[in-house]
């Protein structure tokens, strides 16, 4: 390595034990200019912490005292996808499908460039620097050249590992479409996944994400999405959280007429923390964003929603964007932080946002109990119905599995 560990340490201001371990991991990986750039970008901030505005409610540095093996195997089974092409990342490597659906190609690169802004996100930069291993691939590239129906299912699963880092790039060629499913089921003390999706003219991607970690794990799922001319991106996520879990989406409308849907639901039990953060840049005229995030939190659980729409002065004209976040605080001691932001400089736009939080309606509960439904069942049914709206655009093949996961969680805990 041209850069010594000592020199790397100096790049970090006051590195903690976890950061020292990440430096050591970096030093063991093959040298590369891209990797180095990403790692230096990560070194600017180190593990994100509460004194950084975008991370004030989700403190990875504090949560990851040291990168330690998880006490648990993965917390949940991945979503059932009998027909999908499955790509599984574990701490020891990646397992690729034997056959690929027509129209999908996989490329493995040892040295690939970030799409653009992954390096601006601390955990995106970290993952870009640390994904891969000696002799293994650095980035998996999924190239989609046709309209495809068979889903690609990416599984991130550990087995009492310390860390599981993976990086995927998706290139959607003009007019091509992809059904992407992801299961992030924990099993590592620190998991971080970076996906960069570049969509060309008229491309379609539907991304359905399932996240469930355990209460001693940190999980980051970072997506950087660039939308081309008249492309359409639909994202649906269900998160149960972890000690800290962050689902971050940095999305750019780059050319006119693109359409993005960003939906998510979170269900957090005592000791679990789920964070949905998104930044959407309407960097071209006549682009549309629809965002609905719904959550329900039990006592001792924490939900975070940070959403931002940025609409520049000239290129952002005729933006049509709507952001809604609705949270249910199911018990005393449930915590939800929300920060919806609209930053609009163009003058001919339609942008709206709404943000509510509250408890279940006692009138609804009484009505249901009067019909004979026990209180706990009534609470679970109302909560399920509440969050289900945010899951309606999920891949049809796994929508029921998402609802089942929510239902059994609620039946057990509410």
């Amino acid at each position, binding site marked *: 390595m041209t850069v010594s560990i000592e020199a790397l340490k100096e790049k970090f201001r006051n590195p903690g034990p976890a950061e020292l371990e990440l430096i050591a991991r970096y030093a063991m990986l093959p040298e590369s200019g891209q990797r180095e750039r990403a790692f230096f970008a990560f070194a600017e901030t180190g593990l994100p912490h509460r004194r950084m505005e975008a991370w004030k409610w989700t403190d990875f540095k504090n949560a990851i005292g040291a990168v330690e093996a998880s006490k648990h195997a993965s917390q949940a089974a991945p979503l059932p996808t009998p027909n999908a092409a499955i790509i599984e990342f574990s701490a020891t490597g990646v397992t690729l499908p034997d056959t690929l659906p027509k129209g999908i190609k996989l490329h493995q690169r040892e040295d690939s460039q970030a799409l653009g802004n992954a390096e601006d996100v601390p955990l995106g930069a970290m993952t870009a620097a640390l994904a891969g291993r000696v002799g293994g691939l650095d980035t998996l590239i999924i190239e989609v050249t046709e309209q495809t129906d068979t889903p690609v299912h990416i599984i991130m699963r550990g087995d009492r590992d310390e860390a599981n880092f993976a990086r995927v790039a998706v290139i959607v060629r003009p007019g091509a479409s992809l059904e992407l499913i992801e299961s992030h089921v924990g099993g590592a003390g620190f998991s971080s996944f970076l996906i960069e999706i570049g969509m060309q003219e008229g491309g379609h991607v539907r991304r359905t994400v399932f996240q469930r970690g355990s209460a001693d794990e940190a999980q980051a799922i970072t997506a950087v999405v660039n939308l081309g001319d008249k492309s359409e991106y639909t994202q649906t996520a269900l998160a149960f959280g972890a000690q800290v879990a962050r689902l971050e989406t940095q999305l750019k409308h780059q050319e006119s007429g693109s359409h993005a849907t960003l939906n998510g639901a979170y269900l957090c039990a005592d000791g679990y923390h789920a964070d949905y953060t998104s930044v959407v840049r309407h960097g071209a005229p006549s682009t549309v964003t629809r965002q609905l995030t719904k959550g329900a939190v039990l006592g001792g659980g924490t939900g975070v929603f940070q959403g931002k729409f940025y609409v520049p002065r000239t290129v952002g004209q005729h933006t049509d964007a709507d952001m809604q976040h609705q949270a249910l605080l199911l018990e005393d001691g449930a915590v939800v932080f929300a920060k919806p932001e609209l930053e609009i400089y163009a003058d001919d736009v339609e942008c709206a946002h709404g943000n509510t939080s509250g408890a279940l*309606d*006692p*009138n*609804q509960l*009484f*009505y*249901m*109990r*009067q*019909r*004979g*439904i*026990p*209180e706990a*069942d009534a609470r679970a*049914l*109302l909560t*399920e*119905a*509440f969050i*289900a*709206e945010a899951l309606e655009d999920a891949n049809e093949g796994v929508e029921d599995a998402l609802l089942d996961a929510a239902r059994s969680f609620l039946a057990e805990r509410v």
Partner: protein
Amino acid sequence: MRPMLKLDDLRATVGDEDEAKTILTGLSLEVPAGEVHAIMGPNGAGKSTLSYILTGRDGYEVTGGSAELEGEDLLDMDPEERAAKGLFLSFQYPVEIPGVPVMTFVRTAMNAQRKLRGEDEISAPDFIKKSREIGKQLNLTTEMLKRPVNVGFSGGEKKRLEIFQMMMLEPRFAILDETDSGLDIDALRTVANGVNALRGPERAMLVITHYQRLLDHIKPDKVHVLANGKIIKTGGPELALRLEEEGYDGVLGEAA
């Protein structure tokens, strides 16, 4: 004959302790099995309060007296236990349950009641058959029964949906709270036909209403006048007609 519902000197307040307001002041009432009784009374008499206290809604405190359904103390039970014992309330203002389709809701309720009673669940084909038959009687389309409970329903549709639920759940004792409000004449007849179909020696009902017109269709065995938190007069169906003619003031003046 032992009464199905027996209320004895029932007293209750609503609101927080320091601001508690007395709303029932010693209400006694007996409804035998097989009978339909009507409760009439001016606004603020405590009619809806009575239905909420009997079904166990939060926010009311019973300060004295007793309420029994078939000899069992109602006031000691959770709302869902009372429902499983066969107590049903057709709400004056039915509540919207977004995201929960009518069919899912009723089936969940039916099976929850059966479970509390230690009975087997209803099979899916039996449930669907029964719901179609009853829906047809009440002019509720299959499409309406797939919609979320009361969401986007008109006032009259909501009331018909209450009766749909009642006919599906087949309660032993039903309280109909102002079920006639919001109904046009045709819907009133439809609803009354549904209610009358459930009349039988094993069931009883309490019909709370402001007006005589519902009682033209659902003939009560007895009419009670509720004022100032208690029953002040009881009579046959002719009492409702007298109330219609003379107004509450006339009848209440006489009672006082």
